[in-house]
């Protein structure tokens, strides 16, 4: 009993730290390949830990965070998958099945965190305006604490209380809520871009905005290609203006774009 509690706590501590590593630090010790070894050490069965960790790594290999898209959580998947593979003597593919509801649950919590942290940005804006570094720093540290606690709890529950009890708890949230937050999260960068535009956009720049949008929407060009096209336009514009300037006394109106910037 005491040993079980100790093991569950150690595993949960590892899960909490790796929950942070998944977004910050990024040593990738949170990958199943390495988590498998650590969980094997904690539970005293390194060989099984290695085998399950390796298998889970291959399963999670294709699932990488690209352009902000969130795959099923590899941290909890690796930790719980390996732990139950060892504790119950299950085949890795069965173990991953056990781990999936928890990997989804923690991903749901992360979606919630990323939503709640959007309004926090406006608190941080005020600290930025007041030139208060600690105000910026504390909200970043808080983010780490929340990630740690979420992963700690989600890993601790099933290992200490058993799979079924824990699964019942994590499955109480209706699916449409996590789906809805996910949809809102997909839309929310629109607000960030809109705020950038209120600062950067002027009538004379609207054409470049349109060009960038069309290149991505219709031609589906990579952002690198779009940036290079933008750079070509900027260089052309730069040398055109330079030539204009070297011919003195052009029409006065041509200089207007320099106002304010």
């Amino acid at each position: 009993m005491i040993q079980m509690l100790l093991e569950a706590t150690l595993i949960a501590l590892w899960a909490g730290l790796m929950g942070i590593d998944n977004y910050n630090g990024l040593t990738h010790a949170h990958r199943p390949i390495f988590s498998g070894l650590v969980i094997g050490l904690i539970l005293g069965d390194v060989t099984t830990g290695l085998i399950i960790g390796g298998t889970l790594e291959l399963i999670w290999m294709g699932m990488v965070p690209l352009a902000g898209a969130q795959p099923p959580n590899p941290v909890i998947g690796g930790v719980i998958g390996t732990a139950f593979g060892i504790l119950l003597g299950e085949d890795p593919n069965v173990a991953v099945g056990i781990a999936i509801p928890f990997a989804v649950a923690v991903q749901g919590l992360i979606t919630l965190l990323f939503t709640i942290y959007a309004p926090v940005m406006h608190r941080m804006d005020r600290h930025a305006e007041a030139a208060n570094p600690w105000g910026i720093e504390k909200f970043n540290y808080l983010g780490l604490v929340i990630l740690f606690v979420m992963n700690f709890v989600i890993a601790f529950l099933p290992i200490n209380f058993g799979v079924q009890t824990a699964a019942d708890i994590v499955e109480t949230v209706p699916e449409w809520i996590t789906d809805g937050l996910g949809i809102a999260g997909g839309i929310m960068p629109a607000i960030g871009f809109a705020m950038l535009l209120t600062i950067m956009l002027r009538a004379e720049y609207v054409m470049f905005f349109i060009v960038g949008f069309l290149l991505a929407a219709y031609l589906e060009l990579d952002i690198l290609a779009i940036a290079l096209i933008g750079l070509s336009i900027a260089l052309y514009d730069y040398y055109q203006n330079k030539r204009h300037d070297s011919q003195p006394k052009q029409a006065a109106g041509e200089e207007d774009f320099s106002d304010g910037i």
Partner: protein
Amino acid sequence: MASNELEKNDQSDEELSPELTRKQLIHLGFRSLMLQASFNYERMQGGGWLYSILPGLQHAHRNKKDLSNSMQDNMAFFNTHPFLVTFIMGIVLAMEQNKEDRAAIRGIRVAMMGPLGGVGDALFYLTLLPLTGGIAASMAIEGNIFGPIMFIIVFNVIHFGTRFSLMFYGYRAGVNAIAKIKEGTQRISRGATIVGITVVGGLIATFVTIDVDYFLDFGETEMDIQEDVLDSIMPGLLPLVYTLAMYFLLKKKQSPLILIGITVLFGLLGAYLGILEGGIDDDA
């Protein structure tokens, strides 16, 4: 915060700050590990970016008003690859310390984040991780403990090597480039803003996801609202309309907090009624 945007372009203290030392750059490299600590859907890495470069900004701006303006700018939307971010940090810090025009700094920051994000994904998540992870996994499955150990060493030698060398390289490149450019800052600002605005236009079509999942039933045939109607008018129509709507609401001094609230309700309602498809958690 949109109210004082016009006077925010110039630095009140024009005096250049001393260059950052090697020690300071290493410290900044470590700070960059926190890039996603305050990650969220609205600004993404914006808050973590400010955290990462903050000591550099304090070094560059002794004047409180300048520091305030700089910090506000650096809270804006940001998203790039976390291993390559130090390169942009180096360039931006070189510009900040040289008291470049705020519009130029803003433009450079936005223009660089998207391309480096794509390059980093391809290099690290689509190449390095599957390569090292795959070899290590095949060793581990045979019970070889050196699999995971080799993985963590090789991966991180490349990871931290990239992160810190780009910190130095970016900063050097920034300082040298600025020294060469003797032109008026207005021209540079204009160029940087043109690239930045072009990239933002592209990012809206790439990053903002609104997918309608609704079919009109005509007995014989079905009409897919997203594919048959919206996409045939213009791909990326809803993301563009939504972003512009947010833009005009912000211009009308609507609070961004209200806009976040509206967006969350919009997402929840869309999921509850089943007319919108999950943008980001699709595969979970």
